[in-house]
């Protein structure tokens, strides 16, 4: 299945790229993450338990590897997620283009889906995939904004200026997590089916 979309960040490309590349992780920063470890360069392994509203506890394990990095333009994300109700694996290709003072991120993911996700969830995969990706990326965007406005805290802070300040390590790690989870959360709803 193909997920193709775009998203605009109010931050320059280098900031976005670096933010997504930084390897420090705070596993406890994201609700539902039991474990998310960096295992070798550009390789994340984790265990997550996802809840959507009153429906709780779909556990899945995930391995994400980053490849073909071209700063600040593009990289590939190899994803392998397995849950009790199915699996998802595939490759997401991410491209960053300058747009105004910000960054237009285009991503295209070609995913193989199997198990219960595939056999009863077909009609949801597309729309949920897009909706959750967008949600996740908006969270990423907010974090970027937070990182860039040193005094800003919490959601909703607007980006003040196109500062090229490097983000704090924990911010960058969290961004990557959001992106990883954004794509995977796209399928969480149907993993729960």
């Amino acid at each position, binding site marked *: 299945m193909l997920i193709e979309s775009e998203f605009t960040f109010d931050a320059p490309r280098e900031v976005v790229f670096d933010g997504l590349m930084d390897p420090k992780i705070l596993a406890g920063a994201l609700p539902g993450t039991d474990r998310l470890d960096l295992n070798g360069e550009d390789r994340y392994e984790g265990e997550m338990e996802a809840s959507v509203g009153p429906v709780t506890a779909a556990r899945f394990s995930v391995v994400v590897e980053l490849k073909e990095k071209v700063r600040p333009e593009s990289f590939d994300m190899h994803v392998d997620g397995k849950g*009790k109700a*199915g*699996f998802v694996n595939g490759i997401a290709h991410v491209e960053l283009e300058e747009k105004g003072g910000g960054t237009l991120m285009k991503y295209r993911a070609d995913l*193989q*889906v*199997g*198990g*219960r996700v*595939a*056999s*009863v969830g*077909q*009609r949801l995969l597309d729309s949920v995939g897009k909706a959750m990706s967008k949600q996740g990326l908006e969270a990423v965007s907010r974090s970027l904004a937070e990182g860039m406005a040193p005094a800003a805290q919490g959601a909703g802070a607007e980006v003040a200026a196109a500062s090229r300040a490097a983000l704090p390590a924990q911010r960058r790690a969290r961004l990557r997590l959001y992106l990883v989870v954004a794509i995977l959360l796209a399928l969480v709803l149907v993993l729960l089916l």
Partner: protein
Amino acid sequence: MNPHTAAPPEATATGRPSRIGASPRRNEDRRLLTGEALFVDDVHLDGMLHAAFVRSDYAHGILKGVDLSAALGHPGVVAAYAAHDLGEYWEPGPLLVPPPPIDGLEFRSARQVPLARDKVRHVGEPIAVVVARSRYEAEDAAALVEVDLEPLGAVSDLERALEPDAPRIHEHFESNLAAHVVQRKGDWEQARARAHRVIKRQFLYDRGASAPMENRGVVANWDARSRELTVWDTTQAPIPIRNGLAAMLGLPQSEVRVIAPFIGGGFGPKIMMFYPEEVLLPWISMRLGRPVKWIEDRQESFFATTQERGQLHEAEIAVDEEGRVLGVRDDFLCDTGAYNPYGLTIPINTQCTLLGPYRVPNYHSEFRMVFTNKPIVTPVRGAGRQHGVFVMERLLDRAADELGIDRVEIRRRNYLTPDEFPHNHEIIYQDFAPLIYDSGNYAEALDRAVEMIDYAGFASGEQATARAEGRHVGIGVVSYVEGTGVGPYEGARVTIEPGGRINLVTGVGTQGQGHFTSFAQLVAEELGVEAADVEVVTGDTARFGWGTGTFASRGAVVAGNACHAAAVAVRRKVLALASSVLKAAEEDLELADGLVRVVGTGASVSLGDLAARANPLRGAVTPGTEPGLEATAYFGPERGVTASGVHAMILEVDPDTAQVRILRYVVVHDCGRVINPMIVEGQIHGGVAHGIGNSFYEQLVFDEGAQLQNASFMDYLIPTATDVPRIETAHIETPSPLNPLGVKGVGEAGAIPVGALFAQALEDALDIDGFEIREMPLSPNRLFELIRDARKEGPSC
């Protein structure tokens, strides 16, 4: 008034309400209507445990390990097993249907296993089983089983599977080719050379799931103290299951009882035998010393129950200028899924049924059966006949078009005539015997059908009117022959009890086709009682232990004739005994109303009294006599009998939306002598509905990775009451000379020609130059695409 008569009798031509040819109300209905009827999931035993299976999410992979520890620790869980726990019990299932004796045949056998051990080869293949206090807990724990599986590339497409670099599903075979078979008659090359016209086409015919409303299920109970294993199973073949389980478990057959109670529809896959669940549940019960139940849920059924799928055909027909068939050549690929325990039944049926009611002097039919990473393929109502009928009927339609001959006329010209029977087609059928048609009158059925649907008046009448209004209506007429009633044999036992009750027991099971009534009619006819007076037991190996099962439209033919033979034997005993009791010659006696009467006088004795006399508690009997009024008889036909039929349809299609509406549907059917017309019609209605489903609504959609994408009724569409039209039926009876009753089978008939009929009628309705339908199923989407492409590109080839 007989207290067992539940309904007022209906009059028939002979005045006897429930004889052969009448339609008495069904004996089984009360229990079904009141909810009393026992289905497998209704079985409840004290201390019963529940099983849930862990199934592969991957279509192809190496199984590295299974970790049951978390599952075993879950509350309520009593046991969990993977392949290594089965020890010596683990073995692949038997080859159910060996290949027939055809020269040059290549066949590679691969059978399913109880739990995957080294590899998984299709999505849904069982890997482990968890047993717990409730199904809910068993499923909770099943989710905790850790499966370490290394995915391999999966193959879904038939042609791709045969490519040299395709993933190999069974490593000990050099490719995914499961079988290669050629059957020949006459000399095709010569026929082709001298033909006036040769027409070649490629066809794709896909089928689907059987989807009975009741899923599969097994309850197994090993009672160590009485040394009896009882298994309730949604099987169409209780006796072979009993025999197989006894052998596998090392038990004498007498200690194993398999009961097929009321079954909620079979349609074929419930005669696939030695499914993993059937083989495991009894073993688990013996190990745990407790009853265990497994009931399939609907989503599971799309993987765990066998299904029928597609064939890709390349076919040629050679005709003379009159449209007479000189020969046919057909090469095809057929999908068997990950294993092929059912042998070559489906493609052999395709090869044989292609010939239809036609004279085909030269024939070359060649198929390759292909392994794919999908669930196992075994017969579903029609069992490969649909594919053959589609090819032949479409080729005839093309020939009719090219030669400017009417579609009905070209069929009539090629029909075998009644004086050409028995007609030997020389190729081998699924019962391992040469395909010999025993009887039939194809032209009469055709005439009747075209008359009922007013074929002659359609083009200039209804169709012309519709066209003038901008509507697209079309008509189709197709015909087929179906080999039914194949051996090996079935048996039955009839007993008259003191008190007058009559029992009939037979080894076959029943899945809704009315055996409790139609078989009772056969006995009622011989013994002079009502069908309601005959208590029928089917599908319980403790009551009758010899036979094979319900499949291939053989119940009425084979089991029915056994019931008849047993009743005839009991009748003879009744007459002999009554003759001495009433002191009258046997020729002067008649059986009616539960009595034996001396014609002319008033003297009579009831069957119940006779039965009591036949089993005295004191006194002497003549040496060599058997006690009671009971007889067991078997019937094994020398070969199958050929039923046939013609279907005709008028439909309307909207070329802009591709929505289709069936306006009329006519079936003229020949199943020989009809035992119960109401039941026969019901079978035809159900078959046609299934055929409509396969033509326009149902399709199992697998992606390239052999993942099934529509494993639920939300997305796998079964036709509803608004999709199935009223079906008008008529019968022709050409009694078969191959069995005493003259009956032929009818269970699958309704489903067989529907795809070919849809294609023909749609082409007629759309009337787009060069537009051809060469695939099944269609759907509104697919039909829309085909219409759009035809309109854009003009004539296609």
